[in-house]
């Protein structure tokens, strides 16, 4: 059976995880923001910022990890902007987030065009190469699927553990979960609501930018317009699918990656008979279906979208 062959091939799962990597970064970032009570619809634009700045830093001569750091830093700056607008100023999180997406995308394109006014084909950089883990990479099936990924994929997987640990095992995580549920509780315990929320949005945005950076520095080796292509929005949906839990977020991202990898292979199998757009649609349709099933019972952070003003009841 061809379909079973696809699903059991190591290269299929390697592709699924590769496709999932930027989503893992993005969904973790969105999760941190929302756990603190702030919806960050700037995600799509922050992906673009991460993709552009990370790539450009390397193109200008920095090494790859410095590029990653630059991307994260630039993401955090846009996070700071979103945080200031929505937390102390209490603007609508939807409006501010969409504004950040438009602004961040435009600034990135503008910078790219200004730096490279006369290029027709995007310049390439020396991107991350798959990491060969001695021993593990040679394991049958698991080796090629898991251990022939680039270092950024391992970083994403490690971050799932880190975010889970911080949220559920440390005082900081406790405070973040509390501030997304009832900011008054945090204030009454002498902690700063604004500090926690802005900090969470900045860290979350930095992770989102890493998702973008993965695209230009691992998956591809160049930056081009429109390359984010809605990945940020998928992350916003995946957070709901994951019920704001890091482990489930990983599952959701890999599931989406698997759908996407599957449709690519399906196109090769039966591509002649059915228009390719139908296949492109599959992961999105399945995400919506999964979301409808899961989201009905979703346990939202209670203070999500609600600005907090001190002393107001």
């Amino acid at each position: 059976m061809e379909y079973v062959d696809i699903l059991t091939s190591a290269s299929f799962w390697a592709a699924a995880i590769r496709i999932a990597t930027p989503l893992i970064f993005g969904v973790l970032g969105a999760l941190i923001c929302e756990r603190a009570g702030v919806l960050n619809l700037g995600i799509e634009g922050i992906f673009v910022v991460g993709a552009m700045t990370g790539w450009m830093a390397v193109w200008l001569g920095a090494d790859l990890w410095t590029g990653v750091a630059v991307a994260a830093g630039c993401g955090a700056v846009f996070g700071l902007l979103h945080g200031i607008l929505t937390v102390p100023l209490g603007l609508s999180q939807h409006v501010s987030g969409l504004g950040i997406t438009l602004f961040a995308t435009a600034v990135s394109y503008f910078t790219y065009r200004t730096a490279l006014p006369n290029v027709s084909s995007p310049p390439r950089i020396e991107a991350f190469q798959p990491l060969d883990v001695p021993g593990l990479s040679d394991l049958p099936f698991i080796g090629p699927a898991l251990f022939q990924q680039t270092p950024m994929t391992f970083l994403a997987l490690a971050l799932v553990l880190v975010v889970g640990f911080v949220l559920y095992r440390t005082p900081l995580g406790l405070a973040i979960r509390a501030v997304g549920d009832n900011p008054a509780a945090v204030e009454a315990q002498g902690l700063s609501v604004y500090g926690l929320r802005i900090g969470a949005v900045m860290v979350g945005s930095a992770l989102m930018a890493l998702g973008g950076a993965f695209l230009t520095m691992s998956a591809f080796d160049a930056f081009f317009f429109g390359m984010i292509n809605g990945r940020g929005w998928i992350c916003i949906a995946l957070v709901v699918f994951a019920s704001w839990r890091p482990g489930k977020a990983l599952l959701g991202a890999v599931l989406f990656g698997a759908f996407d990898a599957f449709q690519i292979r399906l196109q090769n199998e039966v591509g002649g008979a059915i228009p390719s757009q139908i296949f492109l649609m599959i992961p999105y349709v399945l995400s919506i279906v999964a979301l409808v099933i899961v989201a009905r019972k979703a346990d939202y952070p209670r203070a999500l979208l609600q600005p907090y003003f001190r002393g107001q009841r």
Partner: protein
Amino acid sequence: MAQEDHEREMSQNLLLALDSITKRFGDLIANKDVSLDLHAGEIVALLGENGAGKTTLMNILFGHYVAEEGAVRVRGWNGDMHVLEPGAPHAALDAGIGMVHQHFTLAENLSGLENIVLGTESLWAMRFSRSKARAKLESLMEASGLEVDLDVRVSRLAVGERQRVEILKALYRDARILVLDEPTAVLTPQESESLFATLKKLSSQGLGIIFISHKMAEVLGHSDRVAVLRSGEIVADLATSICDRQMLADLMVGHSVEAVQRTPGNPGKPLLVLDKVSAGEGREALDHVSLTLRRGEIIGLAGVSGNGQSTLQQLISGLIPATSGTLKLEGKPLPAKASAAIRQGVARIPEDRHHDGIVGSMSVASNLVIEEIRRPAYQRFGLLRYGAIKRRAEAAIKAYDIRCPGAKARARLLSGGNIQKIVLARTLDQHPALVLAAQPSRGLDVGATAEVHRRLLEARDRGAGVLLISEDLDELFQLSDRIAVIHRGHLSEPIRTEELDKSSVGLMMAGHELKKEEAA
């Protein structure tokens, strides 16, 4: 000599001093030159009407607000009195002040334990020690008698348990001063008693306790000293032992409050006739209810909430249809349509006045005319006549003494008492045939309650029939000509108030059958 010793001891026991606190919000003076002391081992009640500035004062103490003038001094851990940094909740916490807000400040997605340790350890610590926290909390629970399951998510805890978590939160931080804002507002009478027993115990262990209240009984029963706040000023600071109910009520309101006296009614022809009406479903369903309400009388409907009262309200308001039986107002069937009910003269004073009584984002004026907006007086060719609406609003604001910044102010910014006055003005000024009043004085202060009662009696004397649904037996006995009891959707035969006593009504509310001879 003895006197001096006493004074010195008292001053060493002094835990907290508020010195001449003044706080303004724009033109409004919320607190004016307020001074208050608290000593170790003492329970002080802060008594005042809604809006007297009690909560504002405590929010200044806790650093949520900054006072324009005055200072808060607390005894430091080294034994000296020092000035508390204003506007800093963490400073108040560090000084040993614990506050239990009226609206609990708990994160519901966390357990009790997590809520309690929140903020007590450095945010940059790699992990927190649950076992150490648990050990400390268990000894605290033992010492205070505050038992609560620490590992259950707060969302699953009952209100009383949440309050215990709040108190433990303060004790966990070694609070020496405990402030509780309207702590019994959400508790059952039994829970309130056990709360005050706990407070007594804590004060005997050396804590200073302030509780805010507008209920005279608990102030008299459970405090050592009472400070009365009126319009932002302390008007009395007395030992509770020398106070009585009337005196405190007068101090609170500023003039003597006379409880409204009901004169014998003069019942006329039958107005509202329910004949074997069934409606609704589930626990609140009405089961073959019959009732005859006459013009010029008030029938009080007693019952524990959730026994069919809300179905009855919705039925008479025209929001739901009867499944069987007939419902007539002055001989005409009352259809299941709210606008028809209003046209036929049903005035509705809903139980949840904030939610069902007003449209919060609309102006006071709009709320006052909303039921009559189709009348030619307020619209012409489908366009609103703002002049007429404004005149109507200004007249009502004056007649009902609605305290608001103006007719254009948004209704939700008003206090509960003033919102109720809007509802009263809107409904009663239409000279309704039937007044359906559900919990009309719940949550209102003494003055506003008296006003509501006066207006209801006035409506009755004008010839309206009033159906008064209340859980407050005092209110029912004070106003009703006859009282009926609702229990599990069954309605008892109304009995003249003079022939009843509170304990027998209490028994009927709990489901006991009562014979007429027994009641007499």
